[in-house]
């Protein structure tokens, strides 16, 4: 497995190079000059645009630009944005908030999603099962910006249970509702997946064997049944860390959270690519690494998987 891990890591190198090149290339090729709109009502003077282009290296050939980007990435030197503020500082402020939000969302997905799925799978057709089936259907049919605005309006504006927007500190209690919103789709899907998996495994021969061994019901369910049923669920949760990131951008926008999403949102609107490029690169890395970890986790969870 160690060998496999190393090979997979090596495979990441060309993928990272390719995706970051595309990000760099696309971003600077987008229509509209990023500097043209920065002088109020009037178009900026050509001399200003030329000076800025030079300052940010845009007059260089694309490959040279890309080479500089890679050098800066490896040394952690991201320079400044168009307003002269250090990009690294902005990233450093925003990342912890997004990570907190994402971790809370994953925790909700795992705890609520798996819990609901197990309960409804064990008692099919029961009250809990019906509640779970209906509520997951509702969640799955709502895009997260709808869920987000809805909860913000009901809990924040109408009932005043929460503040409609999150403060700069973005503390854990403040992030509970946004994290639930971010988690909602995956949570519903996790519940359904867990339920299906439990129902399927409940009829498996090895569960019958566990009962025939004279084990307590609790042990049959918590050890034998759950251990097998959770394999696809945990794999799903891991794979979806990537999509959680794009969900985080929307959620942060709705609740005005100053995380990576908010940063990216504002940078795209201001066409400030000095921020868009490193943020997009980080998102790609998170996605790739989490996928690699899932593949390795799968082998740990299921001994039948052999890595070649």
């Amino acid at each position, binding site marked *: 497995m160690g060998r496999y891990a190393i090979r997979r890591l090596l495979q990441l190198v060309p993928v990272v190079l390719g995706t970051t090149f595309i990000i760099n290339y696309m971003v600077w090729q987008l229509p509209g000059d990023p500097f043209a709109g920065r002088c109020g009502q009037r178009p900026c003077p050509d001399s200003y645009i030329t000076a800025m282009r030079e300052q940010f290296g845009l007059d260089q050939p694309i490959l040279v630009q890309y080479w500089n980007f890679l050098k800066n990435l490896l040394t952690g030197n991201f320079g400044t944005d168009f307003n002269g503020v250090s990009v690294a500082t902005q990233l450093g402020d925003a990342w912890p908030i997004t990570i907190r939000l994402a971790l809370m969302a994953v925790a909700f997905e795992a705890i609520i999603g798996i819990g609901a799925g197990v309960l409804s799978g064990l008692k099919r057709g029961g009250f809990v099962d019906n509640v779970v089936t209906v509520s997951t259907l509702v969640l799955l049919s709502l895009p997260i910006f709808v869920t987000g605005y809805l909860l913000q309006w009901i809990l924040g504006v109408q009932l005043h249970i929460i503040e409609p927007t999150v403060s700069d500190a973005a503390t854990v209690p403040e992030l509970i509702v946004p994290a639930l919103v971010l988690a909602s789709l995956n949570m519903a899907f996790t519940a359904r997946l867990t339920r299906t998996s439990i129902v399927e495994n409940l*009829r*498996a*021969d*090895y569960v*019958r*064997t*566990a*009962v*025939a*061994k*004279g*084990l*307590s019901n609790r*042990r049959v369910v918590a050890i*034998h049944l759950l*251990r*097998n049923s959770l*394999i696809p669920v945990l794999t799903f949760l891991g794979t979806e860390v990537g999509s959680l990131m794009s969900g985080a951008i929307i959620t942060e926008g709705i609740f005005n959270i100053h995380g990576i999403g908010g940063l990216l949102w504002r940078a795209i609107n201001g066409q400030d690519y000095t921020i868009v490029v490193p943020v997009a690169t980080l998102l790609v890395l998170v996605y790739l690494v989490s996928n690699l970890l899932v593949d390795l986790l799968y082998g740990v*969870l*299921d*001994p*039948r998987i052999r890595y070649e």
Partner: protein
Amino acid sequence: MTEVLSEQMGRGSHGGALLEVDNLHVEFRTRAGVAKAVNGVTYSVDAGETLAVLGESGSGKSVTAQTIMGILDMPPGKITGGEIRFRGVDLLKLPDDQRRKIRGEGISMVFQDALSALNPVFPVGWQIAEMFRMHRGTSRADAKKMAVELMDRVRIPAAKERVNDFPHQFSGGMRQRIMIAMAIALDPEILIADEPTTALDVTVQAQIMGLLAELQRDSNMGLILITHDLGVVADVADKIAVMYGGRIVENAPVHDLYRDPAHPYSKGLLESIPRVDQKGQELYAIKGLPPNLLEMPTGCAFHPRCPYRRDNCVTDVPPLYTISGTRGSACHYWREVIDEGER
């Protein structure tokens, strides 16, 4: 078996056999209707005895065994009548926790397909050790040592090195040995083996049957051997119960049944065994289809397929007639069937 429980169950003093299935009825309620899978099965096994349960697919052999173990799928299954007495106590009336203690300690079971019956994500040694840990409170380390000893006992080569391997890393025969080791871990008094060799190669089948017979002799267990294979039965079984349509149609000591079967169905089964002296001849097969459990034939369930059928067979359900102290046949015309001998 805990002391309290064995006392309560009046060890040996109840007069009957160790395990007695008495007029058991089980049905499955499904969308298609009510399938009467077991319709009054009666059989018994004593310590040291081997009972072979025979019958074609769907005759209710496994459902009976699952009901004894208490692992029947309920729903859709439902026990609608009868008793299962273990040491004289009706298991069907025991509360869940006492019933659970009997599984593994009093009565154990080996399943047909060991690959699916073993848990794929735990090492085999762990699965065997779990018996000691959960029933006896043995420590992890000791339980593992005991698991290795058991694996040695069922003759798994290099048991010590393989104790941490997973089920998929073993061959079919070895997996079945592991299944057997797990079943006999706590020295049960009854072992039920439900077609333990059906999924295996012929040579491996013989080894597994040999192992079961040997283990039984050593520990004086009662063995219920469910099988399709009449050839195997003659070597290991003491007595036979033949099932048809969820009933016992004939029970007899093994040699009596082989010499002169007293039910047309058992007779048909015997005639369908390939024999060396009949090489080249066409094999006899019982004509017709197994009964539809949703709509059992009236009278004798075997009548649509029976060459001995008379008019009353269609209307009168034959009881299990006593032929002698140890023999019974559920055929109105059992005398004729015996007298006629081989057809």
